């Protein structure tokens, strides 16, 4: 292995496994932004673990050179939490889809956010199940038709940014796969953030649910004077559905679970007969 006194570049983080995504897939933009973010931060490959679940997004682990884990559907966050708790010095990234994070794995994200475990979760949201060929996903909008929902989706779509904000995530941002420089910047800041960072990415599926035009019309940057310390305002913005805001919604500081847990002093639990009996004296 080469000593990393020299500057690391994008191709150091890129494996020679060729992505199997369809041409034009938004995930290419996320991969590219992630590679550039790792290079920008000059993180050593051996200090990074990328964890993915199941779906088109689940392939991500194989396209990056750092250590990786490819786990079960929905379970990327618990896997990453285990990695981080046992190895707090590693930089841990979860790269998962809307199906992974907001359907079967929906129980995990709020708790990881509430604990403020220091991992960065990148959600590649395409509002469809691409790998299983176009069934509706939890983020599919009302009326969205698919082979599994021929009459259109009738349930309210999950709101990833709102979920992260309401669960106590300490860094919440949204990017767009078609705007890689901004996405790169958000991923960099998410990794730098000490605590649970959630980066929601609109990453359209060109094959089954092409929303590029939809988002190109609705994308809007957060105002220049946006105050990312105002959680209530961030929540109001997350509830806006006519515009799709991009940028850092919210950031705050809170103790990190794995640090606090390691600082706990053992509680003396030795059973002492004399002390026990004294209460009856």
């Amino acid at each position, binding site marked *: *292995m080469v000593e990393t006194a020299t500057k690391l570049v994008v191709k150091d983080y890129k*494996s*020679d*496994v060729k992505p199997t995504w369809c041409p034009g897939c938004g995930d290419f933009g996320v991969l590219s932004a992630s590679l550039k973010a790792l290079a920008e931060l000059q993180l*050593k*490959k*051996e*200090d*990074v*673990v990328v*964890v993915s679940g199941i779906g088109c997004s689940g392939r991500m*682990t*194989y396209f990056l*050179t*750092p*250590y*990786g*884990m*490819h*786990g*079960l559907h929905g*379970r990327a966050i*618990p*896997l*990453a*939490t*285990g*990695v*981080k*708790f*046992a*190895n707090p*010095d*590693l930089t841990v990234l979860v790269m998962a889809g809307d199906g992974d994070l907001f359907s079967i794995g929906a*129980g*995990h994200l709020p*708790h990881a956010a509430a604990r403020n475990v220091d991992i960065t979760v990148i959600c590649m949201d395409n509002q469809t199940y691409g790998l299983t060929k176009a069934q509706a996903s939890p983020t599919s909008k009302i009326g969205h038709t698919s082979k599994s929902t021929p009459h259109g989706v009738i349930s309210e779509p999950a709101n990833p940014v709102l979920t992260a904000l309401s669960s106590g995530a300490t860094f919440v941002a949204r990017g767009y796969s078609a705007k890689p420089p901004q996405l790169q910047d958000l991923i960099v800041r998410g990794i730098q953030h000490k605590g649970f960072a959630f980066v929601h990415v609109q990453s359209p599926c060109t094959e089954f649910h092409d929303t590029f035009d939809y988002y190109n019309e609705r994308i809007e940057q957060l105002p220049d004077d946006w105050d990312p310390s105002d959680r209530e305002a961030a929540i109001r913005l997350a509830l806006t559905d006519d515009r799709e805001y991009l940028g850092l919604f919210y950031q705050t500081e809170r103790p990190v679970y*794995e640090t606090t*847990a*390691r600082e*706990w*002093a*053992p*509680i003396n*639990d030795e059973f002492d007969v004399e002390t026990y009996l004294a209460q009856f004296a």
Partner: protein
Amino acid sequence: MGDKQLIDGSKAIAHSAALAGCRFYASYPIQPNSHLIEEMTQELAKIGGVTMNAESEGEAINMVWGAAATGNRAMCSTTVTGMSLMHEAMSEMFAAEVAYVFVHMARGQTEYRVGTRGGGHGEYRYISYAPHTVQEAADLTRLAFYTADKFRTPVMIQADYILTHTVEAMEFHDFDESDLKEKDWAIDGAKGRVPRINSFIRGTYSLGDKSAMAYGELQERAMERIAYLEENVPSLAETGHLDDADLVVISYGYVSRFAKYAVGLLREEGMKIGFVRPITMWPFPKKEVLEAAEKAKALAVFELNNGQMVDDVRLTVLGRVPVHFIGRISQDDSGFGMGKAIEIPNLTAKIRETYEQMKVPA
């Protein structure tokens, strides 16, 4: 170490796990497993490890996968229904070749089959230990961590409701594991190594080696590993009076203490009864059971379920002698699977009945 202590089964397992250097433990409250969570919280804090009272069983076992894949010693535990929820990950953790220790705090013995064959998908097995005393719970916990690392595979400890809460005199022993090799497969961020991926598709492998296994290939690999484990993991059993026994009672775990005591009482009456207590439930101690079958006229299996280990006994003796099932599901008001069947008068009567029937010429 070496000092006699008066502690319960959960504390013995927890302290042994800490002595083994367990760095991470996650679980979800369920009785009687909850007591182990409390003890692990105390014990891991003393060695700088982390205990997680997780959000669900699914989260707990997947966290353990994460911690264990990085080469850290990690442990998970639950009870009965909790294990059903965890089997999705447990199935894959065998395929991913992750070493970790799993403690099942049973209610009765209805999970013998699940604890030896697994309850999920695909081909897999656990090396499975069933302690019958607090002392053995401590010793087998150390052995479990060692065996898991040595064979890079999941190891299960089958404890139960009584063992969890029973306080006994015991001592912690030193454990020599100096022959264990460095975990060169761990995704622990070691500098200068080829990056690796831990995947259920094919265990831990380096990126240069990119082809994912086909499902059939994966299952064949699992079968090879299972055969290797069956061949190489030492099976353990305790036996008694096999030299003169006409009837041999086979029983495991804490329950076996009642069976052994009943056998002792009946021997005082002059009945030629022996016993075998499997300590490893998988690999099953075939040698000891076959030895019993060679000399005895019949075997009787006592377990607190509707007949699970009895299958392994029958598969071992293959019709050489009759194998009677004398156990049953047995609940008391607590619902923890330890009812009247283990009371000595009932158990003694059951063994006596089997013994006397055996004596009647056919």
